[in-house]
């Protein structure tokens, strides 16, 4: 059994706003071990980014309330003080942010931004840090890293900036790498490069990866386990193959069906999930997906618990439909016959 790095238990994150309390994360549990890739999938506003940021203590604020536990190697991150957190953040756990255009500081050279973490966490001197920065840039595939290290972010293309972000995140050989939509702002060709890079680096550094995305296609290849989030909750959780070949939650079917597929004949119409994700201030009663679910029935007024309902242990979902019904109903969604 590989070393257990992260354990999240009953995590809730709430923000107090003028309009009311936003329940951004509403009861999330998962574990992550060394060498594992966990995919967190959901639409905008499903709480996936807040979950990830909370792991690093980035959502702390006067108006934020936490419940539950986030254990990193057995220590609760939520209870750490700023100093302890700083030790972990960037050093043992680090994050690749979504938008490489805005997450790099435009007035510092790329090299300086990578060196900063090395100098702080490893107390390395300037020239050692710089040498490591060049090495890292080489590792993430930046050509002429020796001279590129002194470039400013605007001199890099989008894909290169994302690589620089990855280099920065890897600077201190972190155990956990959290990638929040690392490829959404990029071309498909560059997306393929970045995903391959993350996969390779995970093996090289023997770390664990949390990959957050709204596109199930992106995680199909590299994730070991996938969590599907909706309105701040986990609605389905399974090993990657089980999730793709035996999805239990109608929301997951919708996500799968929405992707235009090149491996299949062209469909007349694309499946789409009608409506938009619910407000996190006044979320619907009962099953949160009920208002958008084409298969909702009376029982859905009561919220289903996250339970194992299929033969495969560890495959959890939140849906009242019986397994047999689901297997029958989902075919239509997945094959694109039923287009909303």
């Amino acid at each position, binding site marked *: 059994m590989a070393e257990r790095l992260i354990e999240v238990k009953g995590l809730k994150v709430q923000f107090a706003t003028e309009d009311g309390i936003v329940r951004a994360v509403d009861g999330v549990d998962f574990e992550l071990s060394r060498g594992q890739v966990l995919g967190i999938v959901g*639409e*905008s506003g499903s709480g996936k980014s807040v979950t990830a940021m909370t792991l690093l203590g980035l959502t702390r604020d006067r108006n934020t309330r936490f419940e539950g536990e986030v254990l990193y190697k057995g220590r609760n991150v939520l209870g750490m003080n700023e100093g302890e957190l700083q030790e972990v953040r960037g050093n043992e756990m680090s994050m690749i942010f979504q938008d490489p255009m805005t997450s790099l500081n435009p007035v510092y050279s790329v090299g300086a931004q990578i060196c900063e973490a090395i100098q702080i966490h490893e107390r390395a001197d300037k020239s050692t840090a710089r040498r490591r920065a060049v090495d890292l840039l080489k590792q993430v595939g930046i050509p002429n890293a020796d001279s590129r290290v002194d470039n400013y972010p605007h001199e890099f293309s989008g894909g290169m900036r994302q690589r620089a972000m990855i280099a920065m995140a890897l600077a201190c050989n972190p155990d956990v790498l959290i990638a929040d939509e690392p490829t959404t702002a990029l*071309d498909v060709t560059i997306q*393929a490069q970045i995903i391959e890079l993350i996969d390779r680096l995970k093996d090289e550094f023997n770390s664990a990866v949390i990959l957050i995305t709204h596109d199930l296609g992106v995680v199909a290849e590299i994730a070991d386990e996938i969590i599907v989030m909706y309105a701040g909750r986990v609605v389905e959780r399974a090993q990657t*193959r089980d999730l793709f070949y035996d999805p239990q939650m109608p929301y997951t079917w919708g996500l799968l069906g*929405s992707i235009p597929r090149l491996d299949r004949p062209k469909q007349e119409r*694309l499946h*789409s999930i009608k409506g938009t994700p619910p407000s996190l201030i006044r979320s619907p009663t009962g099953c949160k997906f009920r208002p958008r679910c084409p298969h909702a029935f009376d029982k859905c007024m009561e919220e289903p618990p996250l339970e194992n309902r299929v033969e495969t242990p560890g495959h959890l979902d939140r849906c009242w439909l019986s397994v047999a019904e689901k297997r029958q109903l989902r075919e239509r969604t997945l094959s694109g016959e039923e287009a909303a």
Partner: protein
Amino acid sequence: MGSFGMNQSNGGDPLLDVRNVKTYFPIRKGLLQREVAQVHAVDDVTLSVQEGETLGLVGESGCGKSTLGRTIVRLLEPTEGNVIFEGRDISKLGTRALRPLRRQMQMVFQDPYASLNPRKRVGSIIGTPLKIHGVDKSEQRQRVQELLETVGLSPEHYNRFPHEFSGGQRQRIGVARALALHPKLIVADEPVSALDVSIQSQMLNLLDDLQKELSLTYIFIAHDLGVVRHVSNRIAVMYLGKLVELSPAEELYQRPIMPYTEALLSAVPIPDPDLSHERERIVLQGDVPSPINPPSGCRFHPRCRYMTDICREVEPPLTSYGNGHLAACHHPLNVDKETLARATVSERYTPAEADEGAKPKTPAKGEAHPIPESG
């Protein structure tokens, strides 16, 4: 069919004819702002679009697809070449002369956050084109509310501000604005790439419905071949300012000829773990080179896995492989010997002739004509 350069299958002239268009941007330096170099954003592109059809325009960032789109709707002036809309050359028209044409061609922009004025209400955003084109004030409101319904929003949204909407809804507002004046042609520049997949499919279906209802012609710009497949009749692939492949949509997916297209196809993620492990993924190394000094010969050669000496030196001509399928490559893929023997170089490298003979004279003769296109 199999006739090369078949054209008039839709009967009649194309709605839009782009002939040898080049759009260069000058790079100026120094006190005197002397021109030191040029960005070859669009470099000699020739294509046409039939009424009611959707042309997908695909390529990576920096391949010139957006510049071409903007040149077509004349937000930019082409450096050379002609843009012919409904038989009229609009490439050199001034602002005033263009104004009536703006009714006919509209654009939907990529970023739903940046393309709507945050200080204007939805009613005024969608109503502005109506106001400019002198629609009666009382009619304006009614028309805007109709439009809101057409794009799947509710008329009550009239008085709201853009920030009150989600990304997908904002994009719908952008579409409503583009539809306001009953345009014939809509250039949609990456209309779904900023949206979640679930919302993407809603948007694609909406665009599809609108096309049928309002008999629109689309130019659909995207970097993702998965997305354009769904909406396009034909697909044009661009690389570094050049048109490198043009084909009927389904054929492009089954039989890509240009290695660049093959690589683009293989980069599209497949939501199926087993298939995705099995298939051979061609990961393109590096980024698109600079369009200031494009590589010699075939512009794709530094990233191509089939590259040989000839690719470095000679630029491959755009060649017609029949069935309206054009590609520019020295080592064409998925082409059998027979087709290769019959393939003819399109004559688009002789602009003078191309201009003169832009209309096919004998389309059924089995010869490439200067602008081989399929309907």
